[in-house]
Structure formats: C-alpha cells, structure tokens
C-alpha cells in the first residue's frame, strides 16, 4: 500500500461511487416492482449517453448538425426519449414474459442488451466520442489541503465533484419518491404482492410501465454522468456492469443499499489503485467482481436485503 495516495483515492472512489450507486438504483427499482433483473440496464446507460451526445449535435460537423442543443436541453430531450424507450421495452418485451421462468426473463433482458449494442453501433458508430460537452474543463481542480497525502493536498476535478452531487441528489430524490409519494407507495405495494396491490385499486401494469420509464430516466442520467468523465463509447455498458456487484452488496431489495453498495464499489476500485504492486493496481477492473464472489459466499442476501425462506 502506498499510504500517501490513500486519502486521494479514498475521496475519488467515493465520488465515483455516487454514479455507480445511481445506476444500481435503476436496476433495483425494476427488480422491486416487477421481479425482473435487468441485464440490459448497462446498455440503457450507454444508449442514454449516446442520445444526449447526439442531441447536442456531436454526431455532425460543427455548424452542420441537424439538432444542436445546449447540454441541459439535450439532457432533457434524452431523458424524455429514454423514458419512452423504457415504456416501449416494458410493453413489447417484458409484458409478454409475465409469469415465465426466471431464466427466460433474464435472457430476454440479455437479448435486449444485444439489440441495443447493435443498434447503437449502427446509429452512432463504434469509435469513442471524446467531444461530449463537459460543463467544466479538465483543468478545473478543487484543491483541499490534507497533510500526509501525496503533495499534502487532495485534488478533485470539478467534473467529478459535480457528477457526485448530481448522482447523490438524484438518488436521494428517487428514494424519497419511492418511500413517500402516493405513486411511490403504489409501486412498493406492487413489489410486495401483485394481487394484494390489485385488490386495493392499484393498476399493476401501469406501475410496471412507470418503473421502466423511471429506470430509463435514471439510466440516461447515469450515462451522462459517466460520459462527462470518460467520453461516450460502447464501453459504457461494460463500465455500468459494475453496478451489479454494488446491488448484491447492498441487497437486491434495498434502494438505499444500492446507493451504499455503489459507494463501496467505487472505494474498492479506487483503493486498489493506491497499491505499490502493479498487479494489484491493474486489478481495479475485476476487484468489484472479487468482492461480489465474497459477498455471495458469505452473505448472499447482501447487507440490507431480505432473507428468503423457501417452501416446497
């Protein structure tokens, strides 16, 4: 361990974890309301980032773009579009699968992921787009004095701080929405038991549609946050895959757990980079999965998940 790097990596990891937590939240949301584990969420994240990039006119020559919106307007347009995509997915892909076995539903989301991967490549091209409009330049750095750290200070890019703030605020908003508003409570009731929810007058199919729409919005937001840090490419879907370990760590049924799991995964990924050994530093891409295996072996239901009791 290179201890002088630890404070810097700790804070960076925590900030990165906010985005991971937000992405994880979208998966948990769908799982809670409809018991579908959405393997295509990473691809929704990627597609949302591409959509935003396209709405800002990134695809064409400067000045010749079909649509040329400022970032905030492009983001709103992409959020609306991705909400529509979420609704379409629910209606045409997942609703016919109601009552099918777990494997079939899982494969349906995997098929969706493949479809999104190919469609994105055809529509937007396969190479990395580095011209994603960033609200801050990479040289805008927040310096916090911290004796003992490398250079006696912690340096934070504004972009990173901003993504963290947006991610945490958005995640907290969604958690509040889910726990306190009438629609959110209807979604929670649906998650508990479909028939009971029906009997108190909740329209279950509308709740499913709504949760997919919201998940699409969350995914696009997460994708834009990832894109401001690393640019837009097909790789974003793989990056978003590390939300899975976060969810398992937090527990499949817990929204707050997903956010906390995101922080934990961000921390683990950043802290291995403080090591002196090159092998350990390189392992930052698989460290979340090693953690995932440990969680599965020690506490499969995660930190805040529910233990399921089975009967024959």
């Amino acid at each position: 361990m290179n201890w002088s790097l630890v404070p810097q990596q700790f804070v960076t990891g925590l900030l990165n974890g906010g985005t991971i937590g937000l992405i994880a939240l979208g998966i948990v949301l769908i799982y809670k309301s409809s018991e579908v584990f959405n393997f295509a969420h990473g691809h929704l994240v990627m597609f949302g980032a591409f959509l935003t990039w396209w709405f800002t006119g990134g695809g064409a020559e400067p000045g010749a773009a079909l649509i040329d919106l400022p970032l905030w307007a492009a983001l709103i347009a992409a959020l609306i579009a991705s909400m529509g995509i979420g609704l379409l997915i629910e209606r045409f892909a997942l609703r016919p699968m109601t009552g099918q076995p777990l494997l079939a539903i899982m494969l349906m989301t995997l098929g969706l992921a493949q479809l999104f991967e190919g469609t994105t490549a055809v529509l937007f091209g396969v190479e990395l787009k580095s011209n994603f409009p960033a609200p801050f330049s990479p040289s805008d750095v927040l310096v916090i004095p911290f004796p003992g750290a490398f250079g006696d200070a912690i340096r934070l890019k504004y972009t990173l701080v901003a993504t963290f703030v947006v991610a945490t605020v958005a995640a907290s908003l969604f958690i509040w929405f889910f726990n306190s508003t009438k629609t959110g409570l209807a979604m929670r009731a649906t998650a508990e038991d479909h028939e009971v929810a029906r009997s108190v007058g909740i329209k279950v199919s509308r709740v499913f549609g709504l949760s997919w729409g919201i998940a699409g919005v969350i995914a696009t937001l997460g994708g834009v946050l990832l894109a401001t840090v690393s640019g837009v490419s097909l790789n974003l879907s793989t990056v978003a895959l590390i939300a899975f370990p976060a969810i398992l760590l937090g527990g499949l049924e817990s929204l707050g757990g997903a956010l906390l799991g995101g922080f934990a995964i961000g921390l683990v990924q950043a802290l291995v980079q403080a090591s002196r050994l090159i092998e350990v530093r390189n392992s930052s891409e698989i460290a979340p999965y090693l953690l995932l295996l440990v969680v599965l072996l020690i506490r499969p239901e995660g930190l805040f998940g529910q233990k399921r009791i089975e009967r024959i």
Partner: protein
Amino acid sequence: MAMLRPAGDFDRSYEQDMALLRQPWHYWLLGFSLLAAFTLPLWGDAYLVATANQIAYTIIAVQGLNILTGYTGQISLSQAAFMLVGGYASALLVIHAGLSFFVALPLAALAAGAIGLIFGLTSLRVKGFYLAFATLAAQFIIPWLSRHTFKEYLGGANGAIEVPLPQLGTVNFGEVSSYFYISLVVLLITTALLFNISRTRLGRAFVSIRDNDLAAELLGVNLFTYKLRAFFIAAMLAGLAGAIKAHSQRGVGTEFGYSLNESILYLGMLVIGGLGTNLGPFLGVAFIVLLEDLSDLLGGVLAAAFPELSGQLLTSFRPIFFGLALMLFLIYEPRGLAHRWQLLRAGWRLRPFAR
C-alpha cells in the same frame, strides 16, 4: 421420451426399451447424416468446411451448457471463460510439456472441469440469478487472469499466444478439411455421452434439481455432489470445445473472443435450440451461425452501398439479429426449435387428423 407412440409400436425386450434408434428411419437418418458429415470436405468448399468446423466445436460447448442450464437449471454466464481455460491448457501442454494434441485434449478438458468446480462451489450457497452473478464474476476474472498473470506463458497484454497444429504420426491436421474430422469425432463422442446422461440416473437427478431443488434433496439427490457434477461436465465440455477452437484458430487468448458476449451467445443458442433437449444444441448452434453469416452478408451489402459508414455497418448486424431472434423465440417459441420439430413430427404422424 415424452413422445407419445402410435398404437402397435411397443417393446418386447429391455434392450428394445433402452434403444436410442428404434425405427428403420432412425438408422437411415443417422447413416445419411454421418455419411454427409464425413464426406463434407470432399464435396464442400473451404468456407463450408470451416463453418461446419465452427458449428461442430460450438455445439460441444453448448452441449455442456445444456447439461448445466438446460437439465440442471443452473444459469451460467461463463461458458466462454471455461473454453478459454481449455484452450490455454491444451496449448500450454503441447508447447511446454511436449505432449501430443490428442493427449492434451482430454487433459485440457479435465483442467477446465477443475476450474469449473471452483466456481461451481458458489452454486451451493446461491441459485437463480445470484448464481448468474457468480458465473458473471468468473467470466470477468478468468480472462483478466489470462492477461495479467504468468505473462511469459499466457501472452500478457497481447492477449494471445500461438498454438501449434496437431499432428498424429505422419498425418498433419493443418488444413481445415482434415482438422474438421477431429471436431466431428469429438462431437460424436460427446453426443453419445449426452444422450446417455440424459436418460440415466445422473440426468434424472439433474432434472429433479432443476424442477425443485429442495424436493430433489428430500428425494435423496445429494445437491452438493450433483450440482458440482453438472458444473464439472459443463466446464469439461467447454474445455474440449475451447481446446479444439484454439488449435483450429492456431491461437488462443482474449484477442480471439472468449468474452461475456460469447457466453451470452451460447445461452441464446441453447434457448433457441431448446433448453433441456438433446437436439437443441444442434439446431440452435446451426441456426445462430447461419444467422450470423446472413447478418454479415447484409452488413457487407449495406457497407458497399454506404462506404463512409462501413465501419459501423459491417459487424453491427450480428448483435441486432441475434438479440431480435432471441427475443422473438422467447415470446413465441420459448421451448425452442427442438419443440417445433417435435410438433412437426407429431403433425406428420397424425395427419390428416388434429394437429
């Protein structure tokens, strides 16, 4: 066999009851398909033989997945990673231990099986998509290890090592037309094995675990050993397929694929063919490989029409077609092509009456 048999078709001895080939046309079909397969290099062109070779080793991998996911019901997203293990094991045994390919092949299968056992251990704690996560972790960890450890043996950041061609005595299996026979013979062996696993105690225990593992345990099926056996067989067949693939591509490593996408592809092939049927892997693999050829064709035509977009058109239709095919099959024919084939046969037998 779940098939209803026509009146008058009954068995007079236990041998007849256990026979796989029970009607004259079974013998004819088997004979003709074997004849067609073994003479393929004589009448087919190189492209056809190469495709048949690819289909053959992919079927072996999907057969393994069929044991694990189709019969035992354990979802696995790491079949490609186990193929990577088999490919490396065989290549290293041939290069560094000086073994013949034909000795290295079964050893590579055992090596992949052993790795499969390690990740299979998680299946004792978790199931359903929790298990899918454990295998997902395997699918990321194994290729990572191949790139970042034992660099002088595994190729390091290149992600590939060269693999020598197999040789038996004076016969050189360099050409795909001769290499194809290796894949074909191994495929025949694994197929015979699988047909017999599925109808003996082992296969029935697997199916009982799939249908309800708690009930299976109460009936005396030891979950610990049977789940591990399923993982072992699946990883072993993946190892076989990986070794064959490595030697036919003359290289092995992450540069040659073995990624999560391929594991998903194998699952998709299995579902499209028919989960838990012995015919499924054959139909599913053939269907998807041909679909990929078709999408490459379409991509090529479109790329020629729009040359400035060729980079994104050439390869992008594979995931689109595969995703669409998988989704449509899940909605309209979740039991796969094998079930469709059964319906067709039943319809033919009952014609002109109710279908």
